[in-house]
């Protein structure tokens, strides 16, 4: 028997490589969701991991750091907040059905 595929639709899902139930400590939205100001999650509203290993939506932590009173400290541990890498995390889409765990590029 020969089967001819006439049409197929690929569906992809992504998520940040972060613990499932974790939320951004500032806006309390899940990491996979957006900060309070954005509409679309993903590259438009990335996460930022600090050297102290605390992460936030980039927009959330920027709003905080911009405040003089923050003294540029991490809201969690009050260490000076420094991004682990200069570039924010980027999401990598993975096709559904593949065995591979969804991954993101290293932070």
């Amino acid at each position, binding site marked *: 028997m020969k089967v001819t595929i006439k049409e197929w639709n690929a569906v992809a899902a992504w998520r940040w490589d972060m613990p499932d139930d974790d939320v951004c400590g*500032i806006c309390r939205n899940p990491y996979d969701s957006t900060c309070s100001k954005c509409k679309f999650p993903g590259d438009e509203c990335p996460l930022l991991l600090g050297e102290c290993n605390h992460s936030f939506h980039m927009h959330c932590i920027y709003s905080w750091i911009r405040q003089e009173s923050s003294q540029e400290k991490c809201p969690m541990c009050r260490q000076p907040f420094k991004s682990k890498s200069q570039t924010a995390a980027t999401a990598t889409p993975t096709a559904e059905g593949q065995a591979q765990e969804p991954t993101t590029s290293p932070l």
Partner: protein
Amino acid sequence: MFASKRLGKELQKLHEKLPPGITLIQADDLKEWLMDIQVVDSNPIYQNEVYRLKFMFSPDYPIQAPEVVFVADETHPIPWHPHVYSNGIICLDLLDRQGWSPVHNVESVCVSLQSMLTSNTKKERPPGDENFVKHNKQRPRDINFVFHDNQV
């Protein structure tokens, strides 16, 4: 708008579950909430009393700290504490610009104030209370408190 989404989430959680001695009284809008706190252990200074807290949020909450004061009425006195003025203004570093962090929330502030009372042994007002209460026209967030006492 930061505050509305975050406060909405907090409210949902407050409706589900609250630590002992903490009660949500009013949260009709996203500007001003009322919470009641009680000291749950047997500290004699606070026996059988309920204190009412008023939270005021700016549109930038939680980037900006909420303003939190005790409010008095017939059934709710202002608790005795060396850091609580008799007009309800609270001197606590975590509510001040320098001590606030956006990971705090209404519940954690209530718990901190509850534990501040629980551990207190002095039935006192802050030094200069009478003068401060008489002359202070500033909002809590505009007062520059000096934090010198790390005991309470």
